């Protein structure tokens, strides 16, 4: 095994994080599901005419929340950018599970790498800017008056993840294949660095990136980020 102790601990923590995340989210959903439902429907009028329209509205209100645009345009813009970039960046990480051969077969391996570099890099920068906006906003009144430490913890963890991710994207000399080997070694329950990573200083950036992800993922089910699922339920109440 060619991992330094720190990187090894971080890798082991991945398992803990996955377990805590799954258990935590399951627990949250069970608590929600088991609590009594209010007997009456207190949605906002005009209410949807039928179940189909209701479904459409729940989806629209959860993904686009158009009414927000009218009352706080910049927050809407940055929230949209952030979430879209987050989604694309997360999706990009699946290259670590398996190379997107369905793409490289069409456009070629080199082009896929370029696409990853440009696309991933752009998403990283968008997220960083959006996080900067989130953070900056919370230092100003009246946002600081309603912020609690949880809000800052999440933004800082995210900024750590994104910042270190961008660092690997823009400064590292390590290739996707090497990261993929690292990722797959964790998936096989035998965490290890290959030669390229073990030789490179970038392994520190990588391990810190993963450490921040672990902390973030562990905290996720106990934070306001359960809005990942909760938004659909809450927006359903609006339409009932």
């Amino acid at each position, binding site marked *: 095994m060619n991992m330094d102790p720190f990187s090894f601990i971080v890798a082991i923590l991945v398992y803990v994080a996955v377990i805590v995340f799954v258990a935590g989210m399951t627990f949250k959903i069970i608590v929600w599901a088991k609590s009594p*439902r*209010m007997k009456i429907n207190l949605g*906002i009028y*005009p209410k949807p005419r039928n179940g189909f329209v209701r479904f459409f509205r729940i989806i629209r209100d959860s993904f686009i*929340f158009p009414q927000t645009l009218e*009352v*706080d345009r910049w927050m809407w813009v940055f929230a949209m950018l952030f979430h879209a970039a987050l989604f694309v960046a997360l999706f990009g990480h699946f290259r670590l599970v398996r190379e997107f051969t369905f793409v490289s077969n069409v456009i070629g391996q080199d082009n896929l790498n370029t696409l990853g570099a440009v696309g991933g890099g752009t998403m990283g920068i968008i997220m960083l800017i959006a996080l900067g906006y989130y953070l900056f906003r919370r230092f100003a009144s009246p946002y600081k008056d309603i912020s609690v430490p949880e809000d800052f913890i999440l933004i800082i963890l995210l900024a750590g993840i994104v910042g270190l991710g961008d660092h690997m994207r823009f400064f590292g000399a390590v290739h996707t294949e090497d990261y993929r080997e690292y990722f797959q070694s964790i998936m096989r329950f035998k965490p290890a660095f290959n030669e390229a990573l073990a030789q490179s200083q970038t392994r520190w950036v990588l391990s810190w990136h993963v450490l921040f992800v672990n902390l973030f993922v562990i905290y996720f089910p106990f934070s*306001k980020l359960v809005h990942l699922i*909760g938004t659909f339920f809450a927006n359903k109440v609006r339409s009932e």
Partner: protein
Amino acid sequence: MLDIEKKELMIQTLKNKVNKQLLYYLDVCARCAICRDACHQYKVTRDPKYIPAYRAELIRRLYKKYFSVLGKLFPKIYEAKDIDDEFLLSELYQVTYACTGCRRCMYYCPFSIDTLHILSVAKAILLSAGMENQILRELSDAAIMKGENIELFKDIFVTMLKESEPEIREKIKDKNAQIPIDKKNADVLYVALSGMHSILPAAIIFDKAKINWTLSMFEAANYGYFLGDSQKAKTIADRIVSEAKRLNVKEVIITECGHAYRVMNFFYEAWTGQKPPFKVSALIDSISRYIKDGLIEVNKNPSSEIVTYHDPCQVGRNGGFFEEPRYVINAITDNFRELTPNRTKSWCCGGGGGLVAIPEMDEFRIKTGEIKANQIKETEARIIISPCENCRLQLDSLNEKYGMDIKVKSMMEFVAENLKV
């Protein structure tokens, strides 16, 4: 410091109020403050404690303290607070009884968080601490007292009604017209407010439309609801429900009073677990039906004055009547001009939530009504119609304070004035 037993009671109250909706709302709020400018009270005062999310946050701090593992372990992360924290309770009292329950914040929140719902839990906690609003409590108790001693009030009430009957007969040229009371097997029980202003115009309309109706001895207003005491609120509503059952009516029509309709049509079921055994209608809905069905006719364009309409939050966004009132107004005048924004986005007038009944809130509600006042001025209307008593009282105050030079009317008044006889 509150004593231990009271503290236990307050925690228990919070626990009893936990339901799905509350959990979603407490768990998902991102504290993004998108809701801030949706609330007229924050927008006018710029005081952070009136941001809807801040109001909800006060309850969230208690919830984190007692019901979340991490909140118990690391209260600082969530600023979790003890339920007997005096500063928290005093802020909670202020922002809870200030909220008009307009739910405009819910409309704009990306997660549709219902701040009013969270604050109904706040009211329950304040009640269990003996910190409820005293004026609303007195008004609720008075209503309950009246229900228990209705015989004492009946004679005066009947005399007052009899005195008004000639006016109706004169108006609709029908010498048999009357204001029936205690009439068994009537089709409709009409529930008004105290004061002839909410009885007379409706009586004119019902009698003209030849409805088989009877007047309730009780007023529709329910201060128990504003107080947040579901026990008292239920007792107050029950006066009307048992009267309707006793008289065996088919339909109960609630006068133009936003919360009263919601109490009968929604909350009564939540408090008692059953729907009232009759149809519940709102008077504006009935009036628009009478016109549509040709039961009454109205004069078109009695004057060239511009008429505007204020959507009461409890009638529009929270009650579902947007087109009915517009249909009626358009039946009478071609000079109807909308406020902007309107319908589901309508600004609260600032007087809801029982605020008009609380003298200490006068200054605050008139100040926070500024947005509504400006909106009305922009239309250059000379008549504003609003089918909610609280809104009309508030609009009267605004009219005076902001020099709007406008006549505030109920829909029944507007229709009765312009009735074709």
